[in-house]
C-alpha cells in the first residue's frame, strides 16, 4: 500500500516536473509550475514560508516522503535502481551512516549558500541536478521530436506544431549534466540512494527531522525470522536486520522492505519502538563521491561554448552567426533584482533557461556563477511582452512581475562601438537599432556635431534604455554587434 501510493505519487511528480522542463511553449507552467515551487531548497531561498512549513510538518509526520515523492532526482534514482533490480534481485546490503561526510557536506553547502558560491550549491543541490539533466540532455531530444512533427504538420498545412531552435546553450554545463547523470545512474543502479544519504544537503537537512517522525517503518521482532530480505531490498541501506534496527535519518519511506517481508514483520505505524543508533564509517563509497565532485568541478573549467552553425543558401547572402560579446557586468533577467540576489537565490535548476522562448537565457560559464542564467542576444532579444522566466522561477531568484513592470526595469544599458558601426563608418545608411528600440532610447546623430552632413552614429539615452537587447540583436554587424548591452549590478525601475 505504502509502496504503491509512493510509486504513483512519485511518478506523477517526476513526469510533471520533467514535462515542465521539456515544455517550450509556455503553457504547462501554468498547470505544473507549483511542482517546482514545492522544492525544498528553492522554497527556502524564495522565503516561501508556507511551503517550507508544509514540508517540515509532512516530514515530521511521514518521514522523508519528500525524497521519495516530491524530489524528481530522488524518483529518477529510483527508476535507475529499479532497472538495476531487474538485472539482479535482492542486491542491496546494509551499511552504516557516514555521518561525518553528510554533515560536512551540509556545512559546506550552507557555507556556500551564504557566501553566494553558486557553483558549489548547484553541483550539490538535487533539484538543480535534475533540472540540468532535463534541460540540457532531455529537452533537445524533445525539441527534435517536436521539430519532426512540425515538418509533418507543415506538410499538412497545420499549425499545431511549430519548429524551434535546438542549440547548445553551454558546452561545460552540458558536460556537467552528462557527468551528473552518469554518476547518479551508476550510484543508483548499484547502491540505491547513496547520493541522497551522503551528499544531498536537502536529504541531510530532512534527516534531522525525519528521525522524529510520527509514522515510521517498524520491526515486529516476534514475527521477524532474520531472513535479510528487507535489508537486501533497502535502497537506502538503512536496515540492520540482525539488530532489528532502521536508520530513520536515511529511510526515505519507500515501503520496499514492507513488501519484501514475507512474515509481515515490518509495518509503517506510529507504534513505540527503539530509538535508532548512529555510527560512523569512514570507508564505504567515499571515493566515488569525492570523484564526482572533483570531476564536476574540473569539467567546469573545460572547453568554452562554441556556437557555430552555418546557414548557407545559394541565392542568398551568407549570414555570419552572431557571437556573444564579453560583457564586463553580466546581464540577468528583469525580476532578478541584482546580480547578488541572483547569485544567492538561484540554484541553477535551468527551468528559466528551458522556458526562455527567445533563446536569450543560457547557463553561465563563469566559475563563480556556473549554471546560473545569464542573457545574451544572438538569437533574439528580451521581448517586452514576455515574462516567462519570472513566472517559472521557484527560488525567488527571478521575482514574478507583469509585462508592464518588466518593460520599465533597467537591467543594463546599450553601449556603442562606433569603430564597428557601418553607419558611423559610412559603409551604409543604417539606424536599425534606433528603428527597433522599444524604449525609444536610441537616436542617430552626426558623428561630427558641427557637420550635419557627416555620418550618423547611434547615441544611447542611458536613462531610459532598459537593456532589452533589441539593438544588439538587430544590429547588422556580425559576428560581434556594433552595439551591445552591458549589465547592471543592481536593477532599477525607470
Amino acid at each position, binding site marked *: 500500500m505504502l509502496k504503491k501510493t509512493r510509486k504513483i505519487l512519485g511518478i506523477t511528480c517526476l513526469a510533471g516536473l520533467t514535462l515542465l522542463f521539456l515544455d517550450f511553449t509556455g503553457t504547462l507552467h501554468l498547470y505544473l509550475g507549483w511542482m517546482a515551487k514545492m522544492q525544498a531548497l528553492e522554497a527556502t531561498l524564495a522565503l516561501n514560508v508556507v511551503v517550507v512549513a508544509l514540508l517540515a510538518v509532512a516530514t515530521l509526520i511521514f518521514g522523508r516522503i519528500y525524497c521519495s515523492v516530491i524530489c524528481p532526482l530522488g524518483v529518477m534514482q529510483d527508476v535507475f535502481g529499479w532497472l538495476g533490480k531487474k538485472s539482479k534481485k535482492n542486491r542491496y546490503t546494509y551499511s552504516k551512516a557516514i555521518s561525518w561526510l553528510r554533515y560536512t557536506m551540509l556545512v559546506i553547502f550552507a557555507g556556500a549558500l551564504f557566501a553566494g558560491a553558486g557553483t558549489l550549491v548547484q553541483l550539490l543541490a538535487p533539484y538543480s541536478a535534475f533540472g540540468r539533466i532535463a534541460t540540457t540532455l532531455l529537452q533537445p531530444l524533445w525539441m527534435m521530436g517536436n521539430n519532426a512533427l512540425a515538418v509533418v504538420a*507543415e506538410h499538412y498545412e497545420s*499549425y499545431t506544431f*511549430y*519548429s524551434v531552435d535546438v542549440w547548445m546553450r553551454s558546452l561545460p554545463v552540458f558536460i556537467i549534466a552528462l557527468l551528473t547523470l552518469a554518476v547518479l545512474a551508476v550510484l543508483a543502479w548499484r547502491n540505491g540512494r547513496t547520493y541522497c544519504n551522503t551528499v544531498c544537503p536537502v536529504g541531510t537537512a530532512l534527516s534531522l527531522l525525519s528521525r522524529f517522525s510520527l509514522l515510521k517503518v517498524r520491526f515486529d521482532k516476534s514475527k521477524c525470522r532474520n531472513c535479510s530480505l528487507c535489508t537486501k531490498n533497502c535502497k537506502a541501506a538503512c536496515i540492520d536486520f540482525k539488530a532489528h534496527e532502521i536508520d530513520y535519518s536515511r529511510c526515505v519511506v519507500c515501503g520496499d522492505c514492507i513488501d519484501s517481508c514475507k512474515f509481515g514483520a515490518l509495518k509503517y505505524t506510529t507504534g513505540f519502538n527503539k530509538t535508532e543508533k548512529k555510527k560512523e564509517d569512514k570507508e564505504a563509497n567515499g571515493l566515488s563521491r569525492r570523484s564526482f565532485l572533483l570531476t564536476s568541478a574540473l569539467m567546469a573549467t573545460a572547453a568554452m561554448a562554441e556556437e557555430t552553425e552555418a*546557414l548557407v*543558401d*545559394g*541565392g*542568398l*547572402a*551568407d*549570414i555570419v552567426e552572431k557571437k556573444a560579446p564579453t560583457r564586463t557586468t553580466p546581464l540577468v533577467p528583469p525580476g532578478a533584482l541584482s546580480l547578488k540576489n541572483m547569485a544567492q537565490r538561484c540554484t541553477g535548476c535551468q527551468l528559466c533557461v528551458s522556458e526562455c522562448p527567445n533563446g536569450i537565457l543560457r547557463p553561465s560559464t563563469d566559475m563563480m556563477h556556473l549554471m546560473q542564467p545569464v542573457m545574451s542576444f544572438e*538569437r*533574439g532579444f528580451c*521581448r*517586452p*511582452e*514576455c515574462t516567462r522566466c519570472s513566472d517559472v522561477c521557484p527560488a525567488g531568484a527571478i521575482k514574478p512581475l507583469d509585462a508592464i513592470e518588466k518593460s520599465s526595469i533597467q537591467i543594463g544599458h546599450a553601449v556603442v562601438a562606433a569603430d564597428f558601426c*557601418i553607419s558611423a563608418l559610412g559603409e*551604409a*545608411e*543604417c*539606424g*536599425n537599432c534606433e*528603428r*527597433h528600440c522599444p524604449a525609444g532610447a536610441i537616436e542617430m546623430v552626426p558623428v561630427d556635431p558641427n557637420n550635419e552632413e557627416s555620418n550618423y552614429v547611434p547615441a544611447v539615452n542611458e536613462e531610459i534604455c532598459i537593456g532589452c537587447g533589441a539593438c544588439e540583436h*538587430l544590429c*547588422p554587424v556580425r559576428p560581434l554587434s556594433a552595439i551591445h548591452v552591458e549589465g547592471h549590478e543592481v536593477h532599477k525601475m525607470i
Partner: protein
Amino acid sequence: MGMGAAATLAACTGKKRIEQTDNVGEPPTGQMTYRTNPTTGDKVSILGYGMMRLPQKPDSEEFDQDMINQQVDYALAHGLNYFDTSPVYCQGQSERCTGIALKRHPRKSFFVATKLSNFDPKLWSHKASVEMYHNSMKELQVDYIDYYLLHSVGGGGMQNFSQRYLDNGMLDFLMEERRAGRIRNLGFSYHGDVEVFDYLLANHDKYHWDFVQIQLNYLDWTYANEMNDRNTDASYLYGELQKRGIPAVIMEPLLGGRLVKLPSYVVSQLKEREPQKSLASWAFRYAGTPKGVLTVLSGMTYMEHLKDNLLTYCPLQPLNEEEQHFLDTEIAQQMMEMDTIPCNDCKYCMPCPYGIDIPANFLHYNKWIIDKKMPNDAGDPEYRKNRRNYLISLDRAVPHDRQPDHCIMCNHCIDVKHCPQNIRIPVELHKISQRLEELRRDNS
C-alpha cells in the same frame, strides 16, 4: 443525384467517353497560333519560353539540365519556337542551360532572344559590354542572335540609359551588328521611367526597333500607374507601339504567378465562366489577344505549366471585348482592393547584402492578404488563431535572420540592384516588420 447522372451518361456513351478522357490535359500538336514579324517575316509562336525560372533539382540550387532539355524538346515538338534568356538570369546559368538544350535542335527551328544586361555599373564600359554580347553567343552556342534586347531600360531614368547604352557607343555597336546580320532583330525591354520609353520611340526613325518587350497583363492594362505612380499602364505602352507598327513581346503576363494566386471569390468568378480552364489560361489569353503581340513569354518551371500554356495557345481563342473588360476592369478592380505587394518573385533584388530573403517575405505577406487571414482586427473572433498561425507560418517560410526586422533600409535592393516593379522594397519590409512587432507583442 449528380453521381447517378454521371454514371448514366458514362453508361450510355460507354467506351468512347473513356477514350476521350485519356487525352484531357494533353496539348495537341500542330495547332499552335503564330504571329508574323513584319520586318523579318519570322513566324513566331504566340507562346514564348522565358528562361528566367528554370527548374532546379529537388532541395538543391543546381539547375536540372535533364528536365530543361525535356521541356524544351516538348515545347518545340508542340510548335513553340521562341526562347528568351539573359546573361543574368538564374544566377547567370540561364544562357548556358538554354544553349545546351537548344544545341540539340536545328538552328533554324527556333528563335533565341537574349539581352545586354545592365545590372552592374562595372560592366557598363564599351569593352565589358561587347564582351557580354560575345559571351552570350558563346554560352548559347550560336553565331547569330535572333532577338537582341537592351535589358530593362527605364530603371534609373534617362541618365542611366545614356550612360549604359549611348555614351559608351553600345547602341551604335549593336545597330552595326544588326546590319552585319549577327543580330536579326534589335529591341529593348522596358520597365520604369516612361521618359526613356518615349525617347526611344520618338527616335524610332533613327533606331528602327524591330520589337519592344513590355509588361502587359489584365492588371497592368489600366492599373499599373494607380498601383505605383512610377509605373506606366500597359494600355499606353501597347498603344504607342501600335502607332508605329512595332510588334510587342509580352513579359509578366501572369505577374510571376500573382494572377493565379487569387482569393477564392475571384477564383469562383473565373471558374463559373470556364470551369475546365485553368486560372492561368485567362491571363495568357488576355496577353495574347491583341493583334500586335508577337509572343507572350512565360517562365515555365514545370512541365505542367508548359502543358497548360500549350493547351491555351494551341490554338489561341482570343478574348472578346466583354471578356477583356471582365478581366482588366472587373477582376482587376477586385484585385486592386487587396493591399498586396506587387512582387513577381523575379529575384532581381537579390541577394540582399544583409541576407534578407526579400521575395520570400513578400510572397508570404501576400498569401495572408489574399487568403484574407491577415490578423488585422483584434476584435475578429479568428484573430488569436490567425495571429499565432501567421507568426508560425512566417518562421516556416523565412528563417529568423532573413526576416524583415533585419532590413537596415540601406536601399541596396533599389539603388544598386533594381526592382522592375518599382516596389519601394525597404519601405514595404519596414511596414511588415512593424506589423510583426505589434503582433508579437499582443500575446495577451
